[in-house]
Every structure is written in structure tokens, then in C-alpha cells.
């Protein structure tokens, strides 16, 4: 189970085109990442809704191909 950083970035960029994305590989194993996503798509949404937008971008890979993802969303 693992995912390349650029694959993760591409998935999020595809789903949230108007966004700034910052990803860190936390463990160097392509399996533990942190991601900060800045976008106006989050405006007016609860944290849960914002994070669901990011999870939905990952198309079922979260918890399957990708083990651990620390998510921070910033509404612009």
C-alpha cells in the first residue's frame, strides 16, 4: 500500500484545480503524508465538509492505497 507524492498532488489538483497544495512525506515510505490545501472552494464550509472535499479527491484511495494522511484545509 503506498502512493507517490506526485500522484497524490495530481489527484487533489485534478479535483480542486483552483488550489495551492503543500505536501510533506512524513515517514519517507510513500504512505504517511501531510497535506495543506488552500482554496476558495472551502469558503463557507465546515471543517468536516472541507476535509471531505479533499478525501473525495482521492477517489477511494484514502485508507486503501494510502494509509495515513494528515489534512489541513485553508479557506481563501
Amino acid at each position, binding site marked *: 500500500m503506498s502512493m507517490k507524492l506526485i500522484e497524490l498532488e495530481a489527484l487533489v489538483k485534478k479535483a480542486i484545480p483552483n488550489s495551492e497544495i503543500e505536501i510533506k512525506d512524513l515517514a519517507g515510505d510513500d504512505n504517511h503524508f501531510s497535506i495543506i490545501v488552500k482554496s476558495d472552494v472551502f469558503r463557507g464550509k465546515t471543517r468536516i465538509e472541507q476535509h471531505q472535499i479533499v478525501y473525495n479527491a482521492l477517489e477511494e484511495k484514502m485508507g486503501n492505497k494510502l494509509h*495515513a494522511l494528515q489534512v489541513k484545509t485553508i479557506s481563501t
Partner: protein
Amino acid sequence: MDENINDWISKKITSNDVVLFMKGTPETPQCGFSSQVVQILNYLGIEFSSVNVLEDESIRNGIKEYTNWPTIPQLYVKNEFIGGADIVREMFEENELIEFLKGKGIATN
């Protein structure tokens, strides 16, 4: 788990004020994110009921569908999904969690 999983989950989160679906137990968490939430709840002196999703695959998958949230842990307060480790930690760091819990009538330290 023969009982309908959604009914079981619903009963669990309505009959307990604070419920944490986690990997492992509060005494021996099996995942860093689950452990983080347990530490925050303990630090705030919150009494909570925990469910070890590793003990039953149907709960582990059922809870993800129940809230359309793909990860564990999941925290519920008064039958409401609050979030996973990221959101609970963010609320805690911004002093929102304690206010939220008090607002829901949950006893804290």
C-alpha cells in the same frame, strides 16, 4: 455482527455522550492518530466510550459509510460526528474543543 450495523452504530452513539471509534483501546491504541485523540480526551478529562474497530471488520467499514468519512478514528459527541484526528487536534489547539464540549453539556476538567 448479525444486527444491522447502522442500527448498532446509531444505538452506540445515541446511548453514549462521547464515543470514539478507534484502532485499539484507550489503554493500548494501535495507531498514532487514534492515540492522539485519546490523549486529547484524557487531557481534557472527558469520559468517553470507545469502540475498537479492529475487533470487527463490519464496524470498521460500517462506520466509514455511516458518516461518509474514510478514516479512523472518528469522534462523536451527543450523536453528532465531530471529526477525525486532524479536526479534533485542530479544534483542541484553537481552544474550540473545550468550548464545544461545554456547550454540549459535557463535563470537562
